[in-house]
Each structure stands twice: as C-alpha cells, then as structure tokens.
C-alpha cells in the first residue's frame, strides 16, 4: 500500500511508498496523519525517501498536519529528501517550517 506506519515508542513514522506523491493520494495521506494525532501521537516523522516528486496538494497535507500537531505542542519532522523534493523545499522556504533529516534514526533521536 502507499503508506506504512511504524511505531517507535511514542513516535509514529509514516513512510510514503510513492515515486510521485500527488493530489491523488493526498486525502488518504492526510487521514492517516490525522488519525495518528487523534490517537494521541505528538511526535510524527514522515519518510519521503521514496518520493521523487511531491506536488503542492501533497505538501498542503503536510502543512495542515504540522499546523495541527504544533498547536498540541507536538512536531512533525521529515526524512529523506531526493534532489527534486529538496529543491522544491528550498525554493518555497518550506525548510523553515519543517525540520528535516537525512535518515530516520537521526529524526527519531532528535525527539529524545
């Protein structure tokens, strides 16, 4: 399936298994993230290492979730930017609102 959720203690890690993450999958993605927050998760990591491209709708789902989780004193961190995704985050200054890491262990440790 497109999304895989792993738990590491009180951290939920959602891996996006898509080369192109777009509006077609963004609703499902948003639901998965919000379900985690509603279940009490305050530490979320999204692994984008398989994504060669994410469109603005998919990015919108990340932004909405980040806003929700920070209102509850939680955080959403990102892992594994491929070059095109990295470039998009730089161009739109998203790196200023999301903390990003190169691998998931770094992201997990950053919550400890």
């Amino acid at each position, binding site marked *: 399936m497109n999304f895989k959720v792993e738990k590491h203690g009180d951290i939920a890690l959602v891996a996006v298994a898509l080369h192109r993450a777009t*509006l*077609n999958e963004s609703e499902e993605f948003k639901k998965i993230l919000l379900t985690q927050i509603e279940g009490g998760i305050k530490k979320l990591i999204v692994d984008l290492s398989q994504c060669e*491209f994410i469109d*603005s*709708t998919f990015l919108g789902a990340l932004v*909405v979730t980040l806003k929700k989780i920070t209102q509850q004193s939680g955080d959403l961190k990102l892992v594994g930017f491929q070059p*095109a995704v990295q470039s998009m985050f730089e161009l739109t200054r998203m790196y200023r*609102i999301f903390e990003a890491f190169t691998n998931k262990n770094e992201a997990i440790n950053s919550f400890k």
Partner: protein
Amino acid sequence: MPDQEKSFKAKVLLVDDDASLARLFQYSLTKEGFECITASSGMEGFQKAKQFLPDLIISDIMMPNMNGFEFRKIVLEDSDIQKIPFIFLSAKSGEDDILEGYDLGISDYVVKTAGPKVLVAKVTALLKNLEKEREKAVSEIHKAADNISMKVVPDHPPDVEGFLLSHWHLPFGGVPGGDFIDYFNIDPDTTVIILGDVMGKKWGAWYFAVAYAGYIRSAVRVILQNAKELSAKTIMTEVNLSIFHDNRIAEVFATLSIVMVNNKTGIAKYAGAGDLPMVFFDASERKAEFIMSNGLLLGFAENGDYEESTVKMDPGDSIYLYTDGIIEARDPLGNQLGKDYLLKMIELTPPHLNPIDFIKNRMNEFTSMKYDDDVSIIALKKNL
C-alpha cells in the same frame, strides 16, 4: 476516435487474468486512441485504479482469488474510485450473471464472444457521453463563477505606462482552479501585481479556490484603501494577519507573490509568501536570475517574516512571477521542465517579442500541450 484525441486521451484499466486475451483487447483499445493499462487480478486492478484513476474500468468476472464481482464491491467501497464507470467483460453470458453485474451499478456488460470491435464501440460511446457530460458541467461551473463575479484571472492586464504587462493562465481541466491573478493601479504611477496559488484545491473543489482567491483579493483591496504607507511587504504582512486570525480558513494555505512597480522610476518591489522566486531578466547582460523571497505560506504563522526585495528595471529588463504548474510541467516522457529551463527560456526570448507569447509556445512544445496543474505566469517588461 478523433473527437476525444483532441481534448484528452482517455485512460482505460482492463482487469483480466487471461494474459493473451487482455493483450488482444488492449491492442484494440490502444489502436483506437485509448491509453490502456492492464492488471491480472482484482487486487492488482484495485491498486492500479487507485494509482492511475482511469476514466473507465473493464473487468473480467471469472478470476482466481478475487472474482470480478468481489473486485467491483471493493471498488464501490473506495471513495476515490467508486464513481469510475465500470464494465464487465465476461465469458459468462447467462441472464443471472448479467443481472448480478447490473445489481452492482455497472455501466455495461459485454460478453467476450462479442469480440474486441463491440467492446471498443461500447467504450467509445460510453466515454463520449461522459466527455459531453463533463463539458456541460465545466460550462455550468464557468457560468456560476461568472455569475458570482469571481473570475480568478482578469481577462486583460491593465496598461502600465512604459511597460508591457502580460500574463498566461491555463486552468487545469479548463476550470477555475487554485491559481489567481489580480492587478491594482493604485495611482497613476504605481501598479500592484498579485499572483497566488491556493494549495491543494484542484477543480474538484473549484468553488473553494475561487472563494478563497476572492477572499485574498478583498483583503488586498481593503489594505490598499486603508494603509498609509504601502509597500509589497506591508500588503503581504496585513493579508497574512487577516488570514491567520480567520478560523474559517485555518486549514487552507496559499502562496502569494506581490510586486509593486513604479512606472516612473522603474523600481519594482517584491515580497513573497511561500511562493516560487521571482525571475529578474537583466537585458544588458542577457541574464535571468532568481530573486528569492523569504516569507512563509500565507496563514501559516502570525509572523510570516515578510521582507521586500527591490530591483531597478532598465529598458528591456523584465520580471516574471509564476506558479508551480510552470516548472513542474512535464514532457510526454515525464521529465520535468524545471527551474533552470525556465531561466533558459527567459534568456532566449528575442527582445522584440512579447515574452509571454514566446514562453507559452516553448512550453506547449515541451509538454505537447498536456498539463496536469494550473499554469500561470506573469511578465512585466520595461519598453526598449
């Protein structure tokens, strides 16, 4: 199927465990101009339907593990794909089988012995009707948008003395979408140019994007009328504050670019919120470069940290605002146009041409006129 090829190439998903028969029907459908994807089981069919969102699903009934009826049932349970027209293609020709199929809300039932020609004829007729219905819906949407006076893009940019101001906007699927453009002449010397992109709202929720665009435009108008000292930065800061404090739209985010240009001094001031960087073309060097803005998406934080960049435009110089539909446009092989290609197109624009005409032609060549998002670009060029 020439009528359909003009507007789009319809995608058909064919689910059949019999590989040779699937190939035969795929060949016939492809030959008629359809894009045909195949799957060899109900589960694979379900995954491919979710992934490709076809215009039509054709499925066999007798398949191992998950038969066609079971496949149809899981499709009906999934809100993303339940509305896609569905045809059963089966060797089963008994009355009960056909009626069981129709009980599952299918569009048609074709017996395999009828052969590929009959299938192709039925598919063509069905998709033609759908295209007609879609065109009708699109035209109603246009009418509705016109009626509530909320055009997302003005028909023509205003005249700016000493400059050529032009834009190109191609809404995704021909329907007003997430991109919006606005212009304000705030005094005889000063023009404000606005380009925004409502994130995540494609034509499924066109009314939402149109309403949101209208909201931002009203906010800008109120600020223009009331602010004592106007700058791109103050407009952006004020718009962001009013959106941030409005709970009704707390889950909507937009990028926004604002340029304020003085046609006497040639000074253009630019502020951006999560937008793609403005391009400045220096005619004397024939070089295009990105001018980065630094603000956060509109509505994300109370303090968006909006700053302003200034460029002085000399004769022949130009600036460009654009949305992600431009640099994310793809060629038929799936390669993205990219930001460097955008700079190159701008640098290659012949000085005597309207840059928008040149870029539009180059982009249409690159994409073969197939776009998968709203496309918007605004150019402001100082006359030679």
